[in-house]
């Protein structure tokens, strides 16, 4: 089975894999980041970026160079690359790439739902949606007045419909808080993605499943820690934990019962992967919040994906790494403009 896959993979997807690997080679290295961190103004950064793969990205615009402009240009770049990949993709790669976009779609849908609730003009919201998460019926969202109406009229036709099943069956869609809805949808999405990758099997399953499991566990941990001190109870929390991670089922049960940071740490200690993340840093090293350490771990897992060939994991990893790179560049740009050079090295290094 594996042999067949390797042989026939290149027939359908070889071109795109080659494309992705080429683009991955253009990801900024530590030396690039070092140069960017030395800059004093955004103009200097623009010059440095011109010598990387980004080329003439920033120099073509006539607007003032601000951090938000940099951000939007980087995102535009990512969207162009992704649409190029998607338009040339054949199934099952096309389904896989669609799955990647569902994450952004969920964010857009939640934003549109809250907008509809407050009767805001849809035309205002549409430009603020993430371009990777667009779906056909987005403009029609304005006609609905309540979330249930929205669901029954429009969302049922989108690919997100199955994710709503879980959310709608439990409680009334109208009364649900936007954040709870978002997390429930994301949980359903992760579990669905995970089973899809598992069904694909082969190298894709081998690479993607650990990545998605890590994502699921990371969400569980972060939701737990962030819900201390809010009105989100343990029982409510547990309905937001994705069940496709290593923590399922015992870890998740323990997390739902946890009431403070120490208990969460105790749960993490049972799993070797997560023990290191929650460990207290050695004295003398820089303090990193555990979110930062999750980011680092995610980057590591994504880099590992490129070590194997003939699987779809490279596409997912490439998108995630590119996103992290945009975040890093925007962070450095903000530090430079606000002259807060002390924390400029808090970006997550991708390629050593």
């Amino acid at each position, binding site marked *: 089975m594996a042999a067949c896959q390797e042989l026939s993979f290149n027939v359908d997807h070889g071109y795109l894999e080659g494309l992705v690997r080429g683009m991955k080679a253009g990801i900024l290295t530590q030396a690039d980041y070092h140069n960017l961190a030395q800059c004093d103004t955004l103009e200097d950064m623009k010059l440095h970026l011109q010598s990387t793969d980004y080329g003439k990205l920033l120099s073509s615009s006539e607007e003032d160079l601000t951090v938000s402009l940099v951000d939007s240009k980087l995102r535009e770049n990512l969207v162009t690359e992704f649409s190029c990949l998607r338009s040339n993709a054949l199934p099952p790669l096309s389904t896989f790439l669609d799955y990647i976009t569902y994450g952004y779609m969920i964010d857009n849908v939640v934003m549109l739902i809250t907008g509809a609730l407050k009767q805001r003009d849809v035309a205002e919201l549409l430009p603020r949606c993430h371009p990777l998460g667009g779906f056909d019926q987005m403009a029609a969202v304005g006609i609905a007045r309540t979330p249930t109406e929205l669901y029954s009229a429009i969302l049922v036709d989108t690919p997100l419909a199955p994710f709503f099943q879980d959310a709608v069956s439990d409680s009334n869609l109208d009364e649900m808080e936007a954040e709870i809805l978002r997390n429930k949808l994301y949980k359903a999405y992760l579990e669905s993605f995970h089973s899809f990758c598992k069904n694909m099997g082969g190298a894709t399953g081998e690479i993607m499943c650990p990545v998605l499991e890590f994502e699921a566990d990371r969400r569980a941990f972060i939701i737990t820690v962030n819900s201390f001190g809010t009105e989100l109870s343990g029982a409510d929390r547990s309905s937001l934990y994705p069940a496709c991670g290593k923590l399922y089922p015992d870890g998740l049960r323990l997390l739902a019962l946890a009431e403070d940071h120490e208990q969460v740490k105790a749960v993490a200690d049972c799993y070797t992967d997560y023990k290191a993340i929650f460990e207290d840093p050695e004295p003398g090293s820089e303090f990193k919040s555990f979110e930062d350490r999750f980011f680092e771990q995610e980057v590591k897992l994504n880099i590992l994906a490129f070590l194997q060939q003939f699987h779809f994991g490279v596409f997912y990893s490439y998108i995630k790494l590119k996103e992290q790179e945009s975040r890093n560049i925007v*962070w450095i740009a903000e530090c430079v403009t606000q002259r807060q050079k002390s924390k400029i090295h808090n970006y997550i290094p991708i390629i050593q």
Partner: protein
Amino acid sequence: MSGKDRIDIFPSRMAQTIMKARLKGAQTGRNLLKKKSDALSMRFRQILRKIIETKTKMGEVMREAAFSLAEAKFTAGDFSTTVIQNVNKAQVKVRAKKDNVAGVTLPVFEHYQEGGDSYELTGLARGGEQLSRLKRNYARAVELLVELASLQTSFVTLDEAIKITNRRVNAIEHVIIPRIDRTLTYIITELDEREREEFYRLKKIQEKKKQLREKTELEIAARLARLGPIAEPANMLTEETDEDLLFE
């Protein structure tokens, strides 16, 4: 400003008493106003010092808040749309109270929280810690802003009040009191002159009377000498002819 005039009033003793009372009143008024001006100036300087302090702190707090916004955006992604969508009522509100300093009412603003935190669950899945830090930083920035606003309004109001009071003090000191002084001196000089005139008149009358007396004495002496040695006055009983009887 004409400097040499005085109040037009008929110079008399009563006028003098009245003027003296007015002078006393003006001096008391001036002292009271000076005290008020001093109190206001002291408060003014205090406020000025606090404004400088608050402004420098403000610069730092805003800088920190903007940076924590960048940090939160790095970890949590773009949450600006979520925040904008969920706005309904203000959570931090401002109340205006009045404070009284030496008779001048100063507005004072204080902030108060109303309602719970409607953004409690934002960033639940990513960046919650950075978001709560961001909320704290900006809350502190808003507090400082409200304090600064109230300090600056008091500054402006006090400035006006001090200018007015000082103007009044100077007016009393350099215009009113000298005028009353001049009036008083005028009255006193007039009264003195009148007395002198009186005195002079009396003296003249006395002189005249004396001259008259001397003249009459000389006449009597002359008459007596004419009448002879009998220097007796005429006796009505022995007189035979009565001059007054016209017909006998």
